[in-house]
């Protein structure tokens, strides 16, 4: 086996893992705070990708620097997706806060179907090309056979997002409020935390990172359709469960483990089974660690 191929697969795995991680954060945070599997979360990622596509299309004729167009498109995509996430919580989940969990789950599935079909109607089911806006970075030339520019950007952006995210959760007021709310919602209220605001903020952050993932993957793969959110959403969900749903480090770890497994699996075994690896791996891990890699065994309620 040659080592260049190995490195290529390794970097490919990290790239996939990065995208999964950006999405999985939203799954795991929402689950941690309101114990809901937000099935429509993948759709937010897809909407992020489409928003960037539309915005960059609209700006294509302005003669602006493509990199600038890309940045504007990304920012608009993040803001727009975040507003979708917040609206979704308001209309589909908040009214069901006190209802059985199954009701909210069904509402989430409904939301997912609604958003997919809405984009399907608006954009057809055809794959649409995503413009190449980012010029090749010269310093990557020597290693261009193993890593291209968009991959590099995905890795760097994800690293930056993860660092900012960690700082937010660890040190800011809202981050502490999020942790407290996840640990004990009633006590959080008793110290004066506005739990509704924390939940809204959780959707805002989760949707933003998913949208960043959507924009990055579109520029990497070069084409998108209404269905990309469903596939990526399921994979990121698997990653979150793999790492231990509700755990933030778990979601990141699970994402990279999954990305690497898929990359090596398709590279060394067969690409026909690409999607099988994710689930096979999930099942194996859950047999030995039912609550995921970093998940807590069972929630203790005193």
């Amino acid at each position, binding site marked *: 086996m040659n080592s260049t191929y190995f490195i290529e697969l390794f970097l490919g795995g990290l790239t996939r893992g990065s995208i999964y991680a950006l999405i999985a954060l939203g799954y795991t945070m929402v689950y941690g705070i309101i114990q809901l599997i937000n099935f429509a979360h993948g759709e937010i990622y897809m909407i992020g990708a489409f928003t960037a596509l539309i915005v960059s299309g609209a700006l294509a004729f302005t003669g602006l620097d493509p990199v600038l167009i890309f940045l504007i498109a990304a920012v608009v995509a993040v803001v727009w997706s975040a507003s979708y996430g917040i609206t979704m919580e308001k209309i589909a989940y908040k009214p069901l806060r006190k209802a059985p969990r199954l009701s909210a789950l069904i509402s989430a599935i409904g939301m997912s179907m609604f958003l997919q079909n809405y984009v399907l109607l608006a954009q057809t089911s055809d794959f649409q090309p995503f413009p190449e806006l980012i010029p090749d970075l010269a310093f990557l030339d020597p290693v261009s056979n193993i890593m291209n520019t968009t991959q590099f950007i995905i890795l760097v952006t994800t690293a930056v997002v993860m660092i900012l995210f960690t700082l937010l959760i660890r040190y800011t007021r809202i981050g*502490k409020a999020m*942790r407290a709310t996840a640990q004990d919602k009633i006590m959080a209220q*008793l*110290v*004066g*935390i506005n739990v509704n605001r924390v939940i809204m903020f959780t959707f805002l952050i989760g949707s933003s990172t998913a949208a960043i993932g959507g924009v990055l993957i579109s520029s990497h793969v070069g084409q998108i359709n209404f269905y990309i959110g469903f596939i990526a959403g399921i994979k990121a969900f698997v990653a979150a469960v793999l790492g231990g749903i509700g755990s933030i480090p778990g979601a990141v770890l699970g994402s990279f483990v999954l990305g690497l497994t898929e990359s090596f699996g398709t590279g060394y075994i067969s690409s026909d089974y690409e999607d099988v690896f994710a689930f096979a791996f999930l099942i194996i891990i859950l047999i030995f660690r039912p609550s995921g890699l970093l998940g807590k065994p069972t929630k203790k309620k005193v």
Partner: protein
Amino acid sequence: MLKIEKLETYYGNIQALKGIDIEVSEGEIVTLIGANGAGKTTTLMSISGVVPPRSGKILLNGEDITGKAPDEIVPMGLIQVPEGRRIFPDLTVSENLDMGAFLRKDDAQIKRDVEYVFELFPILSERRNQRGGTLSGGEQQMLAISRALMAKPRILLLDEPSLGLAPIIVQQIFDIVKKINEEQKTTVFLVEQNANLALKTAHKGYVMETGRITMADTCENLLKNDEVQKAYLGM
């Protein structure tokens, strides 16, 4: 200071509070005793705004706080130490204290208040970087009270602070409650199943049975009352 009128609270169709009246005056320690399931916790949760009542009134210093959200009530100085302590298990002792001061902005004074609670409970100072979930029951209760003090309470609601603790720790905690009441002039509304200790600590007492207040008197009189002695003091 705190006045409750004809309060009724439901869980779904089940009525937990059937129209209760309670009054706590400024500077007092008032206790509410009653058997399991009487509705004591429900009373406190209704006052704090966590379980909104269906009817009746809650007045705090004359202001109607019925139906207000907990994050509106906390800054008014009504702070609860809930049943079972509810320490944030994955936050450190220091972070738990920070959460108590969540709505405060006066950082310098917050620092001094942390030092004050560390003086009250020196063990917490030793454990400051330890996760809350790893503390013993007694230490958790001390932390729960300290966290509440960090919110600068004018009235402190305590739900069974003696629950599951060794007598010596219980005594220590009750001494501190008395001290806070005397030195800081903090009003205390104390829910207890340990009726003996509660009635010896408080000035005034209420007895609750299945969602109703059945007796209200000074603690002195309640301690002498035949029914109270039989039902709650095991005499």
